[in-house]
Each structure stands twice: as structure tokens, then as C-alpha cells.
């Protein structure tokens, strides 16, 4: 068990999340991808705290990450609700034509 292994775990979660965020058509699934990416970041931040710099700021970083996740979820769902109400769509491709 060392820093590299934790970072590898974090990177794989981030990569899976990225794949989901890029490939999914549905806004909700896209958010799941984003959440998974943040998940990877949390692992990396915790590992850096433990192996490199065990200062309180490392923990604060994780708190910030968690708040970002919560905000991202809340805003995401509010936007989806608003779009859904207005246009009855939940797909990114369909939402894209809102710009036109």
C-alpha cells in the first residue's frame, strides 16, 4: 500500500467517470459521470494528505470537493427539472438545440 496505488485507484475512477460524462446522452447520467470523477479526486486528495502533506488543509480540500459534488447535483437536477418542464427532454443532444 503506497501513494502510487491510491493514485492509480483515483485515476481509474476519474477515467471511468470521464467516459461516462462524455458518452452518456442523458443529462442525469452525465452527472453520474461527473460525480464519479469527483470520487476519484477524493481518493487522490486523501492519499496526498496521508503520504505527502498531512496538514489540515488537505482535509479541507476534501470538504470542498464534497460541497462541490453536492452543489453540482443540486444545480444539475434543478436545471434538468427546468428543461424537462419547458421542453420535456432529458437528453444533452436535444437540449443542445435550445441554443438555436
Amino acid at each position: 500500500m503506497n501513494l502510487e496505488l491510491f493514485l492509480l485507484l483515483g485515476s481509474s475512477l476519474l477515467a471511468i467517470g470521464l467516459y461516462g460524462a462524455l458518452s452518456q446522452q442523458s443529462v442525469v447520467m452525465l452527472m453520474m459521470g461527473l460525480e464519479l470523477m469527483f470520487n476519484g479526486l477524493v481518493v487522490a486528495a486523501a492519499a496526498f494528505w496521508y503520504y505527502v502533506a498531512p496538514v489540515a488543509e488537505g482535509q479541507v480540500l476534501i470538504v470542498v470537493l464534497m460541497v462541490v459534488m453536492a452543489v453540482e447535483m443540486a444545480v444539475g437536477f434543478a436545471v434538468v427539472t427546468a428543461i424537462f418542464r419547458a421542453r420535456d427532454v432529458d437528453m444533452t443532444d436535444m437540449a443542445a438545440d435550445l441554443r438555436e
Partner: protein
Amino acid sequence: MALNPADADLVVVAGPLTHRFTEPVERIWRQVPRPRAFVRVREHEVGDRLDTASVVLSRGGEHEDGGGEVPNGLVMADRGTDRDGLALDRLHVPLGPLLPNWPAGLVVHTTLQGDVIQHAQVDPPDEVGVGEDFWRWPWWPAGTGEEITSGGVARIRLVELLDALGRLFAVAGWLDVAVRAGVLRDFLLEGAESAWVRRRLLRLITRVRRSRTWWWLTAELGEHRHSVVGDVSTRCSAWLNEMERIVVDLDSTESVPLDGLGSGDRSVPVSPQRVLPELLEGTEFASARLIVASLEPWRSPDEVGSPGGVDD
């Protein structure tokens, strides 16, 4: 008594199994897990058999049915606008004819979004087959020329009201009071001493009246401008008042003329087919159950004029 087929061991059919109930009872029987038993009780055997029996009434619809495509033989939900203006999935769920604490035989076809009833439709009442005669039993002797007392009339009306109240409290999850109402009803049917009944009944009425939670929970529920009076609170309150009023008649041996039967202060029964959809649409499931339970026990319009039926 089990609330659902999953919790049951024994299916007891009390009374005749008419055409309307054959299919629902069969469906329930299929859902009961093994080990299980099926009992049919005819009218005069009830006492012998029910000692060991738990009666099963079950909810009707198990799975969604309705529009949409059909993959693997399953029916998918379709969509419709909800009360917040979002187009969401709808389920078509029939309630009844067999459902715990539900007027037996009543079938309401509902369209649910989450637990909000978007649309309700009631099956025509002429299909109702059983149970109606039960409430007329004090008038049976009338056919044979026997005398009917106002005490007897009060007794049967109390039984009827306690049954309705028990159902309302059970649906509201107020089990303790529901059980007490049920116990009183059974003792009344067995012909218990009236002083004892009166004492217990008044205690029950006081307890319900004093419960702030109860009135807070049922106020402004099931109000409708045209079809019915008041909300669940006022209907329940009216039942309590009526019980309080007629419980003093229990001992009366005054004979009642036949044409005077059934007249009195009972609320005007309403046609569920017309009223229920108006009352239920837009309510949440729990409220809908309360509203159904707060209406007089199921009576079809063709009962009008028969003894024990309706005011004229």
C-alpha cells in the same frame, strides 16, 4: 388478520362467493405463500371456524397495466402531466374489490403518478353483489310480523357507524382506536349489556374528540363544493355526534312503525360513482384512502326506498 397475501397463511371466504369476487379471490390465493390453506365458511359455521382462521382481504391490482409498449409481456407505464407541470410516468392501478379496510366490492380505477391520484373512475355499482343484506337484519323480523324496537334500530345503527369509524381509524393508522371500535361493534352484535356499551362508547368518543392530532390530520381533506358536505373531519365529527345521540336509545323498547324506519339524522348517502372521482383526483394515496373511508358505507342508489336505506 393479514394485510396482504404475502403475510397470510389462510384464505377464508365468508359468505357466498359471487361472480364478482371469484377472480380476485383466485388471484389472492395464487399470491399466498406456502404453507397455506383455503377455507369457505357458510353463514352458520362462522363461529366454529374462525377461531383458527385469519381472514385475508387483499389489495386488488398488483401490477401496472395500461398503455405503452409491451416488452417481454410486461406493460410499461405511459406518461402524463402532473400537478407541477412535469410530464411523468403514470401507473394504472385498480383499487379493490378486495382491500383491507375498504368497502367490499368497490372498485376504483386510478391513474397514479408517484402516490398522487391523477384520475379516478369507479365501476358501476350494479355489479355489487354481496353484503348488502347484512345491514338490514334488524328489519328481517318485520317480514314475519314481529315487533321492532327503537333500541334495536339504535343498536344496528351504532354497529354500522362503529364499523365505518373502525375502518376510518384503521386507514389512518390509528390502530388502537380502530381496535376499540371493532371490539365495541362485536360486543354490540353479540347483544352486550347497554350500560356497559354506553360507558365504553362515550369514553371512545371523548378520546377521539380530544385528539388534536386527529383533527389536524383530517381537516380540509376531501372537501367538495357540490357533492358532499364538509371534509373528513366534519364527517367523522358528525358520526361521533350521531352515536352520542342514539346511544341513549339502546334500552328503549318502544316499537317502531315500519314506515318510520331509516328516517332520522343520517347523512344523505351519495353515489360513489359520481362523487369519488371528484374527491379523489389530485389527492395523495393516504388522503384518498381516508376520503373513501370517511363516506358512508357503500350503498348503491337502487337501495333507495328499501328499509334501512335512505331518507326520502
